[in-house]
């Protein structure tokens, strides 16, 4: 349900991104409203991941503006973007394989820890206090995502679906305002997809986190998303509720297939 009164959290305006001669994104604008689940869909090479990388600060577009919480954002590096409250997960899982689940999730709190490396090394007084505080938050997230049975398992030995969930946990540990999920359900079976969908909705409802996600499974997108952006060859093809997008002839032709 789209609430017209909702505040716009992020707005990308006329983004243009080029790699040498290749144009990845061409003049794309859309917004993300506070508290919604926003899906970005499109065929392979449409520029979806590039778009997330732009929001995330990994790519710097040649043209265009990014507005976040009502302010125009200067060019930022990913770690600076992270500090503003934007977290993400990756299409190809990017966890520390040798570390356990809880250790991985704790790394998500690193930006929020004020005690420096030496304090943490000492593990004494204020450093311990701080760690306990952050550990509690991480444990709450672990409980929320139902991964307490693998709390102390090295993530490298976990099945793919669970690794995805650990990655989500780590992103949530940052307590982001905006969570970017790059194909959170890629390579999962039906049951894992259902679980993941449920967690995404729960995160959105319980924590009030705004979510932007890239997903290929149309069924999932139509169920989850409040609004959908459709990209095709780097251009904006459509923008609206799942129903509107589904009914859009250009989208049907380009992405969902031309009926025979």
């Amino acid at each position, binding site marked *: 349900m789209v609430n017209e009164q909702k505040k716009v959290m992020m707005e990308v305006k006329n983004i243009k991104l080029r790699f040498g001669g290749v144009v990845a994104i061409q003049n794309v604008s859309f917004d993300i409203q506070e508290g919604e689940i926003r899906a970005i869909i499109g065929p392979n090479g449409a520029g979806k991941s590039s778009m997330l990388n732009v929001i995330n600060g990994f790519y710097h577009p040649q043209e265009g503006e990014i507005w976040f919480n009502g302010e125009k954002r200067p060019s930022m590096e990913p770690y600076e973007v992270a500090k503003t409250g934007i977290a993400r997960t990756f299409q190809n899982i990017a966890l520390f394989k040798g570390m356990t689940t809880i250790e991985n999730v704790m790394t998500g709190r690193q930006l929020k820890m004020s005690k420096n490396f030496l304090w943490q090394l000492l593990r004494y007084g204020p450093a311990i206090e701080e760690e306990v505080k952050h550990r509690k938050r991480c444990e709450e997230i672990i409980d929320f995502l139902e991964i*307490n049975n693998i709390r102390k398992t090295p993530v490298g030995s976990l099945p793919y679906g669970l690794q995805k969930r650990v990655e989500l946990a780590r992103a949530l540990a940052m307590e982001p305002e905006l969570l970017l999920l790059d194909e959170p359900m890629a390579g999962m079976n039906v049951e894992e997809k259902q679980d993941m969908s449920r967690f995404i909705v729960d995160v959105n409802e319980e924590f009030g986190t705004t979510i932007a996600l890239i997903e290929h499974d149309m069924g999932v997108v139509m169920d989850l998303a409040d609004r959908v952006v459709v990209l095709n060859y780097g251009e904006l093809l459509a923008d609206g509720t799942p129903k509107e997008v589904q009914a859009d002839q250009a989208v049907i032709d380009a992405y969902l297939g031309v009926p025979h």
Partner: protein
Amino acid sequence: MQSSDVALDTMPKLLARNVAEFGDSPAFREKDLGIWQTWTWKEASAEVMKLAKGLIELGVSEGDHVAVIGRNRPYLYWSLLAVQHLGAVPVPLYQDAVADEMEYILTHCNAAFAIVGDQEQVDKIQDISGKLTNLKDIIYVDPKGLRKYDKSRLHSYEDIIKSGMKSSSSIQEQLQKRTSKVVSDSTCVLLYTSGTTGKSKGVVQTHGAIVGAAMNANHHDGLTKDDYQLSYLPMAWVGDYMLSVGQGMASGACINCPEGADTFQVDLREVGPSYFLGPPPLWERIKTSVYIRIQDASAIKRGSFNFFMNHAAKVGKDILEKRSVNILDRFLYFLGNIIIYGPLKNMLGMSNVRIAYTAGEAISAELFDFYRSLGINLKQLYGQTEASVFLTMQNNNEVYADTVGKPINGVELKIGENGEVLYRSVGSFKEYYKNPKATKETKNKDGWVATGDAGYIDENTGQLRIIDRANSVGKLKNGALFAPKYVENKLKFFPNILEAVLFGDARDTCVAFLNIDLNAVGNWAERNNISYSSYQELAAHEQVGKILKEHVEEVNKDLALDPNMSSCQIKRFLVLHKELDPDDGEITRTRKVKRSFVSEKYSDLVSALYSDKTSVSTKTEVTYEDGRKGYLEATVNILDATLYEVKKQDKNAA
């Protein structure tokens, strides 16, 4: 053991006693956010009272049935107690039951309220709420995912506690008045049987029966408040009710609740219980996992494991039962304890186990001896829902794999004319709820209850021996005894075989369905580079069939040694294309095969087994976890096994 003047014959009285006598000892623990949280008896009692008052505010009346559904958590155990303090009756339900099964019980007992664990249970109840005309409100413990639900008839546990804390003194008075009216004869709990045959029945148990049986069982093993246990069995099973609530309340022992559904193994290790009850499939699973992991271990580890396990098999039981063992063997066992048994027990969370029981079903001798040889005091008990579990229990030094012990205090036992076991006990049930006909058939005027199990008193040991369900023991066409469970248990001892169903009543020969254990066989497949994508594919694999054939023939060989059982040898068998599943009604939630249901559902497979076909195509309806239904199509291979001649043991040779 009790010195007080008041007879301790109800749950409220026990709780008051525990607060008075060991108020500061731990009563409940639960792992939450990775840390074990503890409530003492004083704190737990305060929680129960707050909840009870909140429930009065909500409108729970005396005699109301209150369903309690969810995994083992202190909050739900307190719910049971709070409901009892109000003179209402708790009805625990299996948390993994599908909506249809819940509907049957909830409408049968006319539940007025439900206290549930989480969103999943709320969803199931709301799905069927149209048919639950008597159900007023639902209370949930975990608010996750429920934010957007209509809250008019849905309350959080926390809110109920808060309303209980704010309640006026008149509510307090009402609570006291209601609690004082709860007496030994009042209904304590309504427990539904697992329903091996037909629909499940509601067993009405009084406070006096539950408390009496629990105290007798505690006395048998000298259970005290210093014992502690892990409450992991389904709350709806009488085994958990007696262990966690009955025996826990009666002894003051601490109840430990696992963190989640999948953390059992870790939690077990952390708690290290001193008293433990598990059904045979659990003991089987633990042993299978040990053997799988050993096969993956290095050669040195595997070698020493095999060496010491063989030694344990030789002398471990004798050492546990304090029989004489020569000094060299004793030393080797001592060494083995340092290198293998000790660490293994620690891994399994069994280091502190003083008393462990297997119950619910017969256990194979090999499996039983495995644990005893490690020095784990695993014993057998026999009981049923109608008896508040405890009928017979084995004493520490009289433990046998094929018997189930002598009657404990307060139990009289006799064998009926048809071989059925009958008993009279303090723990006997009052009646089947709304089913006077079944009550009459089961319990006679003098209070003797028919168990439905066939058995006899073993002459050598004086202990009870159970053969099978009275109605599943049959005869083959040639008149020979057909005891399916006996054979199935032999099959199930092989780690590769998860379930077995034997057919043969009123037939010429015996045939069997087998289920492979996906863990064990899957691991074997991995090591032998056999790829498979599903249970079905692996089950149909030719190599798997070969292995199972060896297993079946080994069982046949074994059966041939026993002249009484030799006719039960398996002539033909097949590996089922799907696992028997409680969601499909094929086995009960406590993993007992519903034989008649299975034979009806797969009648095409049974008749193929009795024909000379070598394979058969079939289509089976399956139910998914969320209750949707689908079909599974498969071609199942039928395999022949060798039968062995009965060996006449010639003992005349001088």
